[in-house]
């Protein structure tokens, strides 16, 4: 029977023309019954030939029966067929979605010829079923209908007749001739029950046959209904009476409503079949499924049934065989249609897989089409790997044009047919695919391409084939007006009208195009190759090659990317690509982001095109900071300059900091949205300190300004300069002072400072890295590399790498060697080195002191010195007594007592006679080992005890507050302290000078009487009387020098101890009290307390401790500040 379908149309036509042959009733019935939907249209067209055709149609069936030895069998078929209908209907009532294999219809064929009673019963059943179906608006057993249609070449009738009178129809005259005239039969519209329009038509048809047989034929010419017009049928007749006569007795016609005449002008409209929305979906259309499991999936329509509003489609199956196998047969129906929670992936049906799940796979051949279906579990039909479904048209969405290339490829890839054709292309031969589509689908008008004004097109059909042209405009009826532009048609300026199907868009290599449809919609690019209907486009944005149908392209006018975010990632976001790679989004495209990563080099930035899955996440660390090349902190939004590398000279704003890399946005670079990525060390933050890090200590930032300023020759600015120079030392003082040993020599040692660590102690710090990340703790102790922290959150003390700490004020986590701190470690250094001060006298003895005195640097750096220079007595003393043992200390000036303080740190510079010693840096390099410099008390051993005491007194160092300028480095404060607070007899010139200059008013020299003092010249004298600012002293002479002829500078330990005698009648002279300094007493010397609450008392020095004197006063042992103890000029023993 399937083969019968192939019978030539012409032959069939003849059959139609055949005289009516009365065939068996049941067949007629069935035939008419099944035929009705096609009839609707046909009747209309043929205007009254209907009956003939209807009968012809039946004849055809009959003839087929007769036309072979299948006659008998045919009969069975027919009955089987009816049986089936009943069955099918039942089935359908139960389940709309269920479809039956049409094989069932056939295979169920009964062997017996049904009796008349049976036939009647069947007929009734059919009617009932049909009524029920109409009520459910899912009326028909479409399989059966299809079967019939196929068998009788169903759908081709219209075409068939169309071709028959093609000539007449296609000419305007012919068309006009067909228009109804007043002499033609009229059209009457009759109201009937809703939903029974078709039934009414069929009944009338039946009635027509019956009456004709009886010899009293109905006088109506035609009857038809329109699917869209509910509740009405049209009847064609010459007179109203004929209509009424024909309708009489039909229960579905409302007899109360008389037929109404359709005006002549409206007759054509009445019979016009509206090719509306439902028309749009046709066999060959591409559709998208609107809902359910297959929502959004692409499907191809195999067949449609306008009467039932259903379409048979094929889709790539989404079948979960496991779930299907697990489903129990009893509840198979219950949960049918329920979709699984997870959408199974779409993939071609594989019968072996289904069998593997023990599913019932039946192979059956469709007799009508010859297609081999695989039927799984009796309800899923598969054809060539696709799932075949019949669904309501409403659940489908028609695709205006050919689906996007990729989807189409996917769809076609699912095909398992071995044959060629579009489906067989399997995505490989796109060109062939598209052409096939154009041939098949295009013919159906499903995938008509859209043209726009300005498109360049090529004619594909007709006389003008291969002519190129430009679309001028689109006519209202869809015609495309094209101006040919072709070498073959020179000077042709007439616009020609083409049907869209006759044209294709046309592009050439090098054209700049925009994708207007499909996956790549919105992208622009340049055509690099044209291969039939497929264009290869090199995109502007992603610089990738994409394949697009020419039909989906249009010439681009401008290439602007409209979108600036994709999947939550926006332009300029910092995104993580992998563990080591981060980047900034510098461009957003339709489906990809361009990311400037940190993996590139400054001269060759690494730009990656990332799709969403490539990107891990977005980052935002606004608080990150990093060090620039000079060690300055860079934060987000800081302005930086690039100081080396290929991008040197550029500057910009830091947008992101990540793992030592900076993402800098600069206006100087156009590409990559102005972003450059480079390592932080190649940059310098604006306003930061200059110079590379890690130079000499002298170059350390804190130091250098002071250095420059210290060189200033302006004494007037000395004070200020010193202040300026101080920051580095301020801390040093605070930290170093209290614990400060006398050895300031390590100042420039450059060793990693522990001073710094002291600074950290007690502070609360957040750990920003490592296992304790995020915790805060109090610093217990710190070294250069590690810090011990007591965690706040846990009872635990942990040792953490310094680099893991976040210090609020920045930079301190790193133990930058600062000069000011230098004193501290040296305090810890063995004093032995300092003890080795034989060179000290050498220095003091050297005439270089003068030069040193003269150096502009000198006053600049020690204001106390400046004060000294203003003291009249100072000068001679300074210059004249090279032997003065205190001079070394004097060189140290005010600094000396503050050993270990930064103030002192400066002093070596002054002491060092060498010109190179003027500068700190130089000092560092040239000066004898800092330790060697250590003007430790030991070094001064021969000098008066009081002096040493002053040097080491913690009180001294620790009393900056006492002296207002203490805000400036401890130098002043410390310098001033012992002397200012003690007495004027301070033995060091510096101290004296200082005290005299600034602290004199508060000093009481009254108790200095009898005490041995040192005068600036190095002479010693016994104080006889003090009167205000002047003291009368008896200058002694050095008995030892006289005896041994030794050098006068008895200050050094190597020199023979000086013994001074003060004859009572010796010469006296007056000196300013400020010039006097105490001579440090030795053990067992008779002493007098010169300051403090016990001032004036006499006693004996039992011993000295660092800075303290153990004094025996009236048998009472007291500990007293060494600085406040003066040696009596006349010792009991020697006197």
């Amino acid at each position: 029977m399937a083969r019968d379908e192939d019978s030539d149309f012409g032959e069939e036509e003849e059959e139609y023309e055949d005289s009516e042959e009365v065939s068996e009733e049941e067949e007629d019935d069935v035939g008419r019954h099944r035929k009705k939907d096609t009839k609707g249209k046909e009747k209309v067209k043929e205007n009254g030939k209907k009956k003939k055709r209807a009968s012809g149609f039946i004849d055809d069936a009959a003839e087929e029966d007769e036309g072979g030895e299948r006659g008998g069998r045919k009969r069975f078929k027919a009955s089987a067929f009816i049986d089936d209908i009943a069955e099918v209907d039942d089935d359908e009532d139960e389940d709309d979605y269920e479809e039956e294999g049409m094989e069932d219809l056939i295979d169920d064929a009964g062997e017996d010829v049904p009796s008349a009673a049976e036939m009647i019963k069947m007929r009734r059943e059919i009617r009932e079923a049909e009524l029920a179906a109409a009520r459910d608006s899912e009326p028909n057993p479409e399989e059966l209908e299809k079967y019939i249609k196929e068998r009788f070449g169903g759908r081709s009738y219209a075409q068939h007749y169309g071709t028959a009178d093609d000539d007449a129809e296609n000419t305007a005259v012919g068309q006009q001739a067909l228009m109804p005239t007043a002499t033609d039969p009229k059209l009457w519209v009759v109201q009937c029950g809703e939903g029974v329009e078709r039934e009414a038509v069929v009944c009338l048809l039946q009635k027509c046959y019956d009456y004709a047989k009886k010899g009293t034929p109905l006088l109506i010419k035609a009857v038809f209904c329109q699917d869209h017009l509910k509740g009405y049928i049209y009847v064609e007749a010459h007179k109203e009476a004929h209509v009424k006569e024909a309708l009489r007795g039909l229960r579905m016609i409302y007899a109360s409503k008389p037929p109404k005449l359709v005006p002549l002008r409206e007759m054509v409209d009445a019979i016009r079949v509206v090719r509306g929305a439902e028309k749009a979906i046709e066999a060959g259309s591409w559709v998208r499924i609107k809902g359910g499991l297959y929502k959004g999936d692409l499907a191809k329509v195999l067949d449609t049934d306008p009467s039932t509003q259903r379409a048979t489609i094929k889709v790539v199956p989404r079948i979960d065989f496991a779930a299907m196998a697990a489903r129990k047969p009893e509840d198979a129906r219950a949960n049918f249609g329920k979709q699984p929670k997870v959408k199974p992936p779409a993939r071609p049906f594989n019968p072996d897989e289904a069998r593997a799940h023990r599913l019932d796979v039946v192979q059956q051949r469709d007799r009508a089409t010859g297609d081999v279906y695989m039927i799984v579990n009796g309800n899923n039909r598969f054809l060539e790997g696709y799932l075949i479904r019949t669904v309501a048209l409403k659940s489908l969405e028609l695709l205006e044009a050919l689906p996007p290339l990729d989807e189409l490829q996917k769809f076609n890839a699912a095909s398992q047919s071995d044959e060629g054709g579009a489906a067989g292309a399997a995505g490989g031969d796109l060109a062939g695919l598209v052409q096939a589509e154009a041939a098949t689908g295009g013919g159906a008008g499903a995938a008509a391409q859209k043209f726009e004004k300005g498109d360049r097109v090529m004619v594909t059909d007709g006389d003008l084939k291969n002519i190129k042209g430009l679309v001028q405009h689109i006519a209202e009826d869809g015609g495309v007006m094209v101006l040919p532009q072709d070498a073959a048609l020179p000077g042709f300026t007439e616009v020609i009208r083409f049907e869209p199907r006759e044209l294709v868009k046309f592009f050439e290599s090098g054209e700049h195009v925009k994708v207007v449809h499909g996956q790549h919609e919105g992208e622009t690019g340049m055509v690099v190759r044209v291969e039939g209907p497929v264009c290869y486009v090199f995109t502007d944005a992603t610089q990738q090659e994409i394949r697009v149908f020419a039909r989906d392209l249009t010439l681009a006018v401008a290439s602007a990317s409209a979108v600036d975010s994709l999947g939550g990632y926006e332009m300029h976001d910092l995104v993580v690509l992998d563990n080591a790679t981060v980047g900034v989004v510098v461009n957003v495209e339709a489906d990809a982001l361009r990311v400037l990563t940190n993996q590139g080099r400054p001269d060759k930035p690494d730009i990656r095109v990332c799709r969403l899955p490539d990107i891990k996440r977005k980052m935002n660390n606004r608080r990150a900071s990093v060090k620039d090349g000079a060690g300055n902190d860079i934060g987000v939004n800081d302005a930086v300059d690039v100081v080396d590398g290929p991008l040197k000279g550029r500057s910009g704003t830091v947008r992101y900091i990540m793992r030592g890399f900076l993402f800098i946005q600069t206006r100087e670079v156009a590409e990559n949205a102005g972003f450059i990525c480079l390592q932080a060390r190649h940059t310098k933050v604006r306003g930061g300190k200059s110079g590379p890090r890690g130079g000499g200590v002298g170059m350390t930032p804190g130091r250098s300004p002071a250095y420059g300023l210290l060189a200033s020759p302006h004494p007037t600015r000395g004070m200020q300069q010193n202040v300026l120079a101080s920051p580095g030392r301020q801390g040093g003082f605070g930290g170093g002072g209290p614990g400060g040993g006398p050895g300031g020599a390590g100042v420039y040692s450059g060793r990693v400072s522990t001073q710094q660590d002291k600074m950290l102690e007690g502070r609360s710090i957040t750990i920003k890295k490592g296992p304790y990340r995020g915790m805060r703790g109090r610093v217990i102790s710190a070294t250069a590399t590690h810090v011990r922290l007591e965690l706040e959150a846990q009872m635990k003390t942990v040792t953490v790498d310094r680099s893991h700490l976040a210090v609020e004020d920045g930079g301190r986590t790193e133990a930058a060697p600062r000069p000011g701190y230098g004193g501290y470690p040296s305090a810890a250094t063995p004093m032995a080195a300092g003890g080795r001060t034989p060179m000290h006298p050498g220095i003091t003895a050297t005439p270089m002191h003068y030069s040193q005195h003269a150096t502009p640097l000198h006053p600049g750096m020690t204001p106390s010195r400046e004060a000294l220079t203003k003291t009249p007595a100072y000068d001679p003393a300074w210059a004249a007594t090279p032997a003065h043992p205190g001079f070394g200390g004097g060189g140290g000036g005010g600094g000396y007592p503050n050993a270990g303080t930064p103030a002192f740190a400066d002093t070596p510079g002054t002491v060092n006679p060498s010109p190179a010693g003027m500068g700190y840096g130089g000092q560092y390099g040239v000066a004898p080992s800092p330790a060697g410099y250590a003007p430790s008390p030991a070094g001064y051993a021969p000098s008066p005890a009081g002096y040493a005491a002053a040097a080491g007194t913690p009180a001294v160092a620790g009393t900056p507050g006492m002296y207002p300028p203490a805000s400036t480095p401890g130098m002043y404060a410390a310098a001033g302290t012992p002397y200012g607070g003690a007495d004027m007899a301070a033995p060091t010139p510096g101290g004296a000078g200082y005290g005299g200059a600034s602290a004199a008013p508060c000093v009481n020299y009254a108790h200095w009487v009898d005490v041995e003092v040192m005068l600036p010249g190095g002479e010693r004298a016994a104080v006889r009387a003090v009167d205000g600012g002047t003291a009368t002293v008896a200058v002694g002479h050095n008995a030892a020098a006289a005896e041994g002829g030794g050098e006068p500078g008895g200050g050094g330990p190597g020199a023979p101890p000086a013994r001074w005698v003060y004859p009572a009648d010796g010469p006296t002279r007056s000196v300013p009290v400020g010039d006097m300094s105490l001579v440090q007493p030795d053990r067992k010397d008779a002493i007098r307390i010169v300051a403090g609450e016990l001032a004036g008392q006499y006693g004996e020095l039992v011993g000295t401790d660092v800075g303290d004197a153990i004094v025996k006063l009236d048998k009472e042992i007291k500990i007293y500040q060494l600085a406040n103890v003066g040696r009596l000029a006349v010792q009991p023993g020697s006197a």
Partner: protein
Amino acid sequence: MFYIKDLEKELEVHPRFFGPRLREEIERRLRQEVEGTCNGQFGFILGVLGITDTGRGLLREGAGVAVFNLKYSCICFKPFKGEVMDVVVTSVNKMGFFAEAGPLQVFVSNHLIPEAFEFNTAHEPCYQTTDGDQKIVPGSEVRLRIVGTRVDAADIFAVGSIKEDYLGVISAPL
């Protein structure tokens, strides 16, 4: 294609430059502003040859700046479809290669490279003939024909082809 064009430009000059060196300043500013720019009409302006006429500076009211309507001649470079030019390859990838002709960037798709060339990533990405005679690597000089141009606001991009007689590699990188 290179052209010598006479173009005009309005240039604003701040009053602080009004003085004996005004002309120098104008020329400096002109060069700074136009050299290296690109527009769709004239292509890239490679260099200013000279100012033919500075016109009379007109003070702009309220601003104090002088506006000169300059006429100057310059060398322009505009690529055309169909033009044959020599370029230097800058990068090679599987889609084709990028090359530069001065300020112009040209892309040659692998569709527009003769089939004899094969993409080879063994050593460095390159297009190589099977016999190894010719090789397109960054630095190679290539003669190509421009098949299309894309003119952006401030740039021109071209697609070229070497799939034609007399086109292809001219010299290997130095």
